């Protein structure tokens, strides 16, 4: 058995203080598997330790909000006994390492967040930021990312209807790939992750578990030898066909009454899904890891718990209903395994070859997750530019320059690589202010958009945060929709730097103010911190994804001029 050395602790990203907390909770030293579990549960990604304090200040309720932040995705009432389920999530780092697969698996992950809730995904959007267009890597990154988003979404058969793209040299070493999915679910069939029912079976479905994405840092620990790099790819490869099967199988099963709780295995796979389900239900869980479908030989409990293999889900079923579920998953050609059951011990117990390999208290671990009030400094006000100092440019020069600028140039090259019409309900294609997808079988529509202008946020985080929300709101109203709610994706640099933390705090404040003023609550979101290369942070990028409803598609508005001779009116200041 591996001895836990300070080196191994550091490689798992735990500070000395955090490790002391581990010792206090367990009353003993953890083994490697347990340490791995703590490290992912307390990672920034899972615990929101730097951001939680500020996320709590966002407005999250309105009469039409059915589920705010805290579940796999937000849920809002859109009338006619239907709900819209949506969320945005980042896959920044993986997309920089391997643009095609990084972006593709990002789309896969956000789709799972949405159909886990019982919704059929009806649209994808993506908010992208790249470095300078003439930077040697940009071309490769953009073509890989776009092909990856298309490759995944096109195969799964969900139209990619919108998004945004910006360029700035400060993204040269750290691009942003934020993917959003919108789904529609019947109001009386929403599924949640809260486990219940002691003794109920815990079921694994989807693809087999391989050694994908097991954290680079953990590779160095004693169990692994020098040639392990080859065996432990940190980049996951997506399998959109399996995802399509998973969507269909899950939705088919959701039409029956056998699912108690369901959760996708995203980052930190089996660990966070089982922990979250048990923790929300105030229960314990016992898993027999030998039963997990495995793709490779010789996998260890540590690897099984930390693997980020894609296209997998965890469910709690009604007792005795395993055969119903199994038949559906087999019909769709997917793996299905009962890997454990719920207990009343409040502990997570993992066994392997008949031996207990981990035994952790769930609530203390979740409650003791670190939460930081990081020091922050407000962004110093940007110098005011005197209009007189701005050189005058004749419009005949300004207009072509603007039209040719990478930030304004047509995005047709991108969206033509996305199937934006599949499902037969795209009534407003990409290229307008907001995309509009008809609610199938009705004359109503959902409008959606993603927006953020990072240079405004960098100049003034509060104002920039407000502006992003206002822009999303305007884009929805411009399509004739009633804006209902937003999801956000907070992309920032290193929160341990007070100025960066100040950007985050300011943007949250701006977001909160605008959302409150517009009655446009935040129902889901994601935080991506530490977006830096060589000490230089990306421009602060709080991406907003807005959703609204159009009650009568005859009243939908589009951007094109309709006929010669019609009046052109400018409104606003």
């Amino acid at each position, binding site marked *: 058995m591996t001895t836990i050395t300070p080196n191994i602790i550091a490689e798992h990203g735990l500070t000395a203080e955090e490790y002391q907390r581990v010792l206090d909770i367990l009353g003993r030293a953890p083994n490697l598997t347990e340490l791995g579990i703590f490290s992912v549960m307390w990672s920034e990604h899972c615990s929101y330790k730097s951001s939680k304090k500020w996320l709590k200040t966002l407005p999250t309720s309105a009469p039409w909000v059915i589920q705010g932040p805290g579940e796999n995705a937000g849920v809002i009432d859109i009338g006619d006994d239907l709900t819209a389920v949506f969320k945005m999530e980042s896959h920044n780092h993986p997309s920089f*390492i*391997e643009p*095609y*697969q990084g972006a593709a698996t990002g789309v896969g992950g956000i789709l799972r967040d949405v159909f886990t809730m019982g919704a059929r995904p009806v649209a994808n959007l993506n908010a992208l930021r790249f470095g300078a267009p003439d930077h040697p890597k940009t071309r490769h990154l953009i073509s890989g990312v776009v092909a990856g988003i298309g490759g995944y979404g096109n195969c799964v058969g969900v139209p990619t209807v919108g998004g945004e793209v910006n360029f700035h040299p400060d993204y040269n070493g750290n691009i942003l790939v934020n993917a959003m999915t919108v789904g529609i679910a019947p109001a009386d069939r929403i599924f949640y992750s809260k486990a219940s029912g002691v003794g109920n079976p815990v079921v694994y479905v989807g*693809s087999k578990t*391989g*050694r*994908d994405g097991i954290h680079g840092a953990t590779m160095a620990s004693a169990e692994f030898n020098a040639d392990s790099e*080859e*065996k*432990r*790819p940190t*980049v*996951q*490869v*997506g*399998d959109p*066909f*399996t995802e399509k099967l998973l969507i269909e199988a899950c939705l088919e099963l959701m039409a029956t009454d056998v699912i108690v709780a369901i959760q996708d295995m995203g980052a930190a796979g089996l660990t966070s899904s089982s922990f979250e389900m048990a923790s929300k239900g105030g229960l314990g869980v016992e898993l027999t890891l030998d039963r997990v479908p495995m*793709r*490779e030989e010789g996998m260890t409990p540590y690897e099984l718990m930390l693997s980020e*293999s*894609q296209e997998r889900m965890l469910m709690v079923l009604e007792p005795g209903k395993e055969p119903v579920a199994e038949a559906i998953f087999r019909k769709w*050609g997917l793996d299905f395994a009962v890997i454990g059951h719920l207990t009343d011990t409040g502990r997570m117990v993992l066994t392997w070859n008949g031996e207990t390999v981990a035994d952790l208290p769930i609530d203390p671990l979740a409650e003791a997750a670190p939460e930081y009030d990081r020091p922050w400094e407000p962004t110093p006000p940007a110098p005011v530019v005197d209009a007189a100092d701005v050189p005058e440019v004749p419009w005949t020069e300004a207009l072509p320059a603007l039209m040719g600028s990478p930030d304004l140039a047509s995005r047709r090259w991108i969206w033509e690589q996305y199937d934006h019409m599949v499902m037969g309900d795209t009534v407003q294609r990409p290229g307008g202010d907001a995309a509009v997808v008809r609610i199938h079988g009705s004359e109503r529509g959902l409008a959606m958009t993603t927006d953020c202008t990072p240079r405004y946020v960098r100049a003034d985080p509060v104002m920039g945060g407000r502006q992003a929300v206002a822009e999303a709101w305007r884009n929805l109203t411009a399509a004739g929709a009633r804006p209902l709610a937003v999801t956000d994706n907070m992309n920032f640099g290193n929160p341990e730097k007070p100025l960066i933390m100040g950007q985050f705090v300011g943007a949250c404040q701006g977001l909160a103010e605008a959302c409150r003023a517009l009655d446009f609550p935040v129902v889901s979101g994601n935080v991506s911190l530490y977006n830096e290369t060589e000490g230089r942070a990306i421009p602060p990028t709080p991406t907003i994804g807005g959703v609204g409803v159009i009650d009568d598609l005859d009243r939908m508005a589009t951007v094109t001029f309709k006929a010669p001779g019609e009046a052109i009116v400018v409104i606003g200041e």
Partner: protein
Amino acid sequence: MKARVHVTLKPGVLDPQGKAIANALHSLGFDGVKEARQGKVIDLDLDDTDAEAARARVDDMCRQLLANTVIETYRIEVDP
């Protein structure tokens, strides 16, 4: 001079193609296929006349374009 580059996924990387091929072969009744993996071969027709120089250049091409070394490995054959 001809060069051939074999590009294969690193062991451990999920190979959806290979998986699909194995499944399809099974459903066609070809049992006994334990595993299938799919790779690429790129055949290049080069101006070079020196095998060693050619190999070095092709190695460059692989690292820059032909293989995605994050998930793939490659092997070069030069045919003098």
